[in-house]
């Protein structure tokens, strides 16, 4: 039987570069002087300046990871950690400069806002250039703004939570984030307020040889409910760009948060991101993640189930093509009785790409009556790609139901034969199987994103099977 030839993704709109037209770009490298200059440029309060310098010390004291993908191509001396675009924060798209606005238009952000979102934030390089939310939510006390505004206007709230969920000594790139962070979103949903439509932040890195270090802090108060979507992309350059964002989610008792991500960074991007949720009593956090882009990704969202009856679900797919090494997965720490975690992870490798599912499920002695169920499936589309599954299951109490399953393999010849016997061409049969494989993830995405994901898959398979 002929082979499936899968070409690189047609990144079309994602790859259109704007001129590197910044207002200020910090010199490359990471030194005390550079961190102090970033702090000055951003008009940080004193506590934040001190925080950054402490984080830098931690960064310098920590080793590079001794596991996972090879990060030797990353040279911090070649990365500018702060690039301020030529605009202020706007609340109307009309006020955003044309070149930046056109980029977001191409990505469909303003249109999505009109159609189906309760609020939108858009970051370009190191600063948020647009933020807006529906009036009725403002009246209900919902806060959705950029982090810089939050520090100015809600200092006590930010100070209480900023990098408490993810401490700077967690790993080297979180420490780097702490030192040079800029931009990102702050969301506060008051007690019992339930948002019917999602909020969405979109992160675009345009400047070459630079880094994006946005900080997202979301607090969902008791009984409240939110769906937050983040999207990210960048045009491709020849040299390495770095993304080391940080997401902190505080979800209090009986609250609900769904955090959806479509990551489509360019293939010169090192995506070393950190995400963590602290989940209260009977609260729930669901992660839905699609990882398509980047040269190297290391991303393992963590759900810490701290309250009795807390729940989490992770539904994720990775799609690695030529030159990509996507090392992704999930961590759940069960710290309270009767907590539960459900993991459904899928990966597709093609054209020499490498997908790794790496995870930790830890059930502490306190988490009696807890349940965890993990399922991983990997699909290999050719014999030059790699797919690894590296899960750690750490069970520290007997009163637990834990199960983990993983499967690896290619598209079944029998299934193709069956579909072809029903009149489908081989191409259509394979495309249908891949879409079916990804369906459990795409059905969890908002419809526009599910369509986008299916389009990405179709683009990859279209005309490639011979």
């Amino acid at each position: 039987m002929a082979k499936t030839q899968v070409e690189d993704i047609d990144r079309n709109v994602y790859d259109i570069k704007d001129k590197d037209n910044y207002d200020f770009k910090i010199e490359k490298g990471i030194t005390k002087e550079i961190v102090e200059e970033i702090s000055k440029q951003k008009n940080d309060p004193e506590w934040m300046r001190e925080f950054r310098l402490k984080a830098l010390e931690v960064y310098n004291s920590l080793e590079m990871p001794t596991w996972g993908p090879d990060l030797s191509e990353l040279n911090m001396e070649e990365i500018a950690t702060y690039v301020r675009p030529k605009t202020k924060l706007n609340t109307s798209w009309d006020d955003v400069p044309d070149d930046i606005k056109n980029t977001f238009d191409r990505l469909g952000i303003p249109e999505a806002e009109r159609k189906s979102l309760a609020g939108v934030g858009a970051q370009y390089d190191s600063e948020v250039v647009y933020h807006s939310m529906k009036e009725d939510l403002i009246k209900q006390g919902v806060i959705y703004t950029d982090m810089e505004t939050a520090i100015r206007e809600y200092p006590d709230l930010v100070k209480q939570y900023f990098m408490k969920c993810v401490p700077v000594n967690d790993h080297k790139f979180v420490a780097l984030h702490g030192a040079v962070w800029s931009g990102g979103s702050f969301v506060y949903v008051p007690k019992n307020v339930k948002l019917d439509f999602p909020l969405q932040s979109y992160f675009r890195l345009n400047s070459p040889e630079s880094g994006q270090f946005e900080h997202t802090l979301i607090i969902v108060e008791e009984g409240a409910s939110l769906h937050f979507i983040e999207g990210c992309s960048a045009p491709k350059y020849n040299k390495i760009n770095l993304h080391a964002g940080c997401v902190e989610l505080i979800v209090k008792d009986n609250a609900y948060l769904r955090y959806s991500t479509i990551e489509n960074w360019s293939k010169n991007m090192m995506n070393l991101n950190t995400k963590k949720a602290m989940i209260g009593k009977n609260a729930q956090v669901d992660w839905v993640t699609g990882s398509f882009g980047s040269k190297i990704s290391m991303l393992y969202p963590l759900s810490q189930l701290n309250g009795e009856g807390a729940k989490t679900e992770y539904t994720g797919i990775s799609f690695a093509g030529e030159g990509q090494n996507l090392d992704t997965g999930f961590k759940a720490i069960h710290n309270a009785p009767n907590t539960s975690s459900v993991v459904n992870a899928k990966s597709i490798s093609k054209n020499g790409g490498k997908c790794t599912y790496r995870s930790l499920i830890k059930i502490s002695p306190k988490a009696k009556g807890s349940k965890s169920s993990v399922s991983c499936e990997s699909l290999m589309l050719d014999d030059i790609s790699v797919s690894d599954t590296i899960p750690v299951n750490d069970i520290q109490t007997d009163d637990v139901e834990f199960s983990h399953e993983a499967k690896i393999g290619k598209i079944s010849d029998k299934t193709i034969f069956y579909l072809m016997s029903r009149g489908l061409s081989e191409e259509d049969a394979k495309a249908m199987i891949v879409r079916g494989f990804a369906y459990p993830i795409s059905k969890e995405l908002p419809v526009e994103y599910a369509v986008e994901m299916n389009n990405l898959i179709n683009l990859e398979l279209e005309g490639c099977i011979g």
Partner: protein
Amino acid sequence: MDNKKGKNMLRINETPVRTSKSFNINDININETEIENESNVFENVEIIGDSSKIQISNNKTPINLKYGLGEELTNQVKNNSNQEFQIVVDSKTNKETIFNFDFNKTNSSLIENIDILANEGTSATFVFKYESLKDVEAYHNGIIKLNAKENSNINIIIINLLSDNSKNLLAIENTIEKNANVTYTIVDFGGEKTVTNYYSNVAGDFAKSNLNTIYLGKDKQVLDLNYIAELYGEKSNVNIEVQGALKDKARKNFKGTIDFKKGCKKAVGEENENCMLLSDTAKSIALPMLLCSEEDVEGAHSSSAGKIGEKELFYIMSRGFELKEAQKLLVRANFNKILENISNEDLKNLILKNIDLKLD
């Protein structure tokens, strides 16, 4: 390889692929002082079997392991072994050959090298039983190397019944050629610390590597089991089945790796690990890895942990059994599929007796 960690700590039994250090599973530390040297020959070995079809000598054979437990422990066997067996299988034999290593006060330390060559088309079963008196602090550092030539069929049964204050360190390495079939059955009940590194190079087309393990941990016993199978041959097959139970403050690290190398088309690899937790202070960590560089394969693993089913316990207890007896019955039932690989009734009864003793 840098096996040092701190001044006196050695990092041993490393996984073939590392994951985050904070997950505490990449390796295990032992203190240098835990490595005992012994210059006297270990004499308490009894060999039972048919010597007409199997040649056994005390020749020293070269040691060159791909993985092993770590440089220091491999070197100890290389340079300071106190027992060596070179075994050559020349024909088919149905009768098993049993090596009984009995540890006592004068033979408490065994540093051994066992080298088995199974020639083409041969078959044999070997049993290596390590047993010690209760009050003996045994030390065992062993290497078993097997070369299974084409069409050979080798069964190896390893029974660890050392006392609970012993150290049991074992490295196994197999090369399995075309159409050869190698089955290991490992019973790990003894040792304050039991560390096993098992590596199968499933080199030949249609080669098969089966590994079945049962383990029982109690008190503060620690088990660190690192099983690695690399598939190179087309239509080769790996099966790893591990069933265990932990009580008191026992801890088990299970690291199982099935690695499909490029070219092992139509290979199949399966791994199943299940840990019964009999107390709320026992700890079970599992890292069942699947590594894959070949498209046309089928790989699957599953891992589970939890206490014995309450319904099953209730059912058995409603028939008049005490809780402990009911637990024993259920543990035995879980182990039974693996124990079926042992045809020697005396050995099977010895294992069943030890299950009861451990769970009392």
